[in-house]
């Protein structure tokens, strides 16, 4: 879009702006609706015709707190942070090694790693369950952390490898000539250049973990309840608690939005790095 900047502002610009605004409005409407449900009294929830104006209530919030949903939020947060941190710590050197070092059967090993991501999660959760039952990791925070780490690690290594490949190898050679060891080169030359890629990829890993339901449901049991798993609890014998569901749903959305918003500069740069460099 080299000519976009030089195009005179006018009817065409206005047209596109309007189009984008309309599109955004359509996309954001469900979110707005969910947000309004948080403070909507139950009798206004499904009123016909739609009540746009109502007296806001905090009942849904107090119910959610009473039921201890904030503990699920904390569980989710700690679980995703720890598992993503582990992925970064283990995955970054692995991705670098796959990109740079010659080893026997490298491609096969890489495909194997990728394969664990290709299988539908349902196929993996059964063996996970059986193994966890044997070693006593069921219903434990550690077990779930390891599971999340496992399925995010393959994705992370896969994406970060291409970032590593795009780095000019001469930088590392130049540093090697100065007498640095591989570890020093990795820490002080490669890592700073990979930072954007690491941020972008780990944010994606965090979001995957944050949204994950199946593993948390099967492996976490009653002891470890993440936010996605806690939501169905609001489908009670007395009916579905829509307002409370909206509260939990919005709560689940906020950290993701916040992370993306704060780090968007890194993410955009990271995700477009390969393409821009050409």
């Amino acid at each position, binding site marked *: 879009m080299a000519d976009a900047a030089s195009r005179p502002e006018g009817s065409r610009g206005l047209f596109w702006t309007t189009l984008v605004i309309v599109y955004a409005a359509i996309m954001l409407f469900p979110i707005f609706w969910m947000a309004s449900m948080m403070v909507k009294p139950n009798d206004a929830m499904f009123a016909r015709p739609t009540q746009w104006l109502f007296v806001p209530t905090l009942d849904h919030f107090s119910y959610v707190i009473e039921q201890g949903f904030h503990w699920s939020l904390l569980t989710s947060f700690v679980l995703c942070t720890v598992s993503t941190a582990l992925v970064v710590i283990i995955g970054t050197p692995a991705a670098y090694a796959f990109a740079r070092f010659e080893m026997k059967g490298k491609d096969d090993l890489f495909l194997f790693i990728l394969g664990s991501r290709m299988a539908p999660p349902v196929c993996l959760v059964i063996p996970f369950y059986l193994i966890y039952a044997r070693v006593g990791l069921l219903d434990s925070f550690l077990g779930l952390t390891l599971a999340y780490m496992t399925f995010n690690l393959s994705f992370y290594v896969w994406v970060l490898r291409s970032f590593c490949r795009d780095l000019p190898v*001469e930088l590392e050679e*130049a540093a*090697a*000539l*100065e007498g640095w060891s591989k570890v020093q080169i990795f820490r002080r030359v490669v890592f700073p250049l990979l930072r954007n890629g690491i941020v972008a990829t780990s944010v994606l890993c965090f979001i995957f973990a944050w949204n994950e339901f199946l593993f948390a449901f099967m492996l976490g049991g009653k002891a470890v309840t993440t936010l996605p798993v806690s939501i169905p609890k609001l489908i009670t014998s007395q009916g579905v608690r829509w307002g409370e569901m909206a509260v939990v749903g919005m709560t689940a959305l906020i950290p993701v939005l916040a992370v993306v918003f704060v780090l968007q500069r890194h993410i955009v740069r990271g995700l477009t790095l390969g393409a821009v460099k050409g």
Partner: protein
Amino acid sequence: MSSIAFESVFKRYGEVDAVKELNLACGAGEMLALLGPSGCGKSTTLKMAAGIESVSSGEIWFGDKPVSRLAPGERNIAMVFEDYALYPNMTVWENVGFPLKVRGITGQPASARIGEVLQLLGLRQMADQPVRGLSGGAMQRVSIGRALVRDPEVILFDEPLSHLDADQKVQLRAEIKRLQKLRQVTSILVTHDQTEAIAMADRVAVMNHGVLQQVGAPQDLYERPANLFVANFIGEPPMNLMKAAYAANRIVGEGWEVTLSTARRVKLPDGAIVAGIRPEHVTLLPPDAAGSAAARGTIIYREPRGDADVLTVVLDAGTGAGGKLVAEIAGPSDWRAGDKVAVGLDVGRLLVFDAASQKNLEVAP
């Protein structure tokens, strides 16, 4: 400063020999160019000297010290890379000072050293700029500064000029040469550009398919190429190479013939040969000129170069058109495409290669 010697060095990648039995020496304070087309093994050779690539067999000597088992950092070498390999998040000053910082040299001695090198390279004003936005020429200067800053025993240049604009290329070429002579640092220059090799190096080693073809002073390679590859690779426009037969003292080709002097004749066996003559040793005369024209022909193409004209001539063979010959004469000349000419060859400069072995029959191997 130390000398560098390659002793029966091989580099194998699986089945492929990237470098085959390389024996080559570079004297202390000398600049040696490794010249060849891409994939000829010149860069691999350089990287083996740097320690970035391992040596499959053979030994590399720096002075009297075998280095092939040493890590790159233990060899006291510096390298200048094709795409500069500067640390993008550092300034000019920090990049040049990097080798000192790594070695724990800081404070006054370090800044004096860095300042001196920046001065030498004319980078003083840019010292605090980040390297990201610099021009290619400036970036390569910084890279050279980084190489010079700690007085290495050897500097390895890996195609240092190939990404630069023409004017910067010429400027930096002279500069590298000047600094290399000033510091008397042993250097190896890898390039695919013969002009660069000839302009900068004391001696040039030509490689092809991993095999060293010939080493010598640039003028030697130009005047006495050891084989057809070197003859064809060095010189612009390239040497005319024509199939011919040699018998007694006469060389007969398609549409041309010459007689060699008796002194040269004794050394040459009869048989199929390839005759080589540089375009500037071909003269063109009016077709009716009296005397000993080697051949007659028609100009089919004229390329004016300002000070010279490069003319392509198709020789009249007995039947139809014969071989082609390129002549470079002082220009601008009056010759035009379509003109009939008589062709004179400087027989003293004519080279004789064996058709089968492709070797120059008059150069000792």
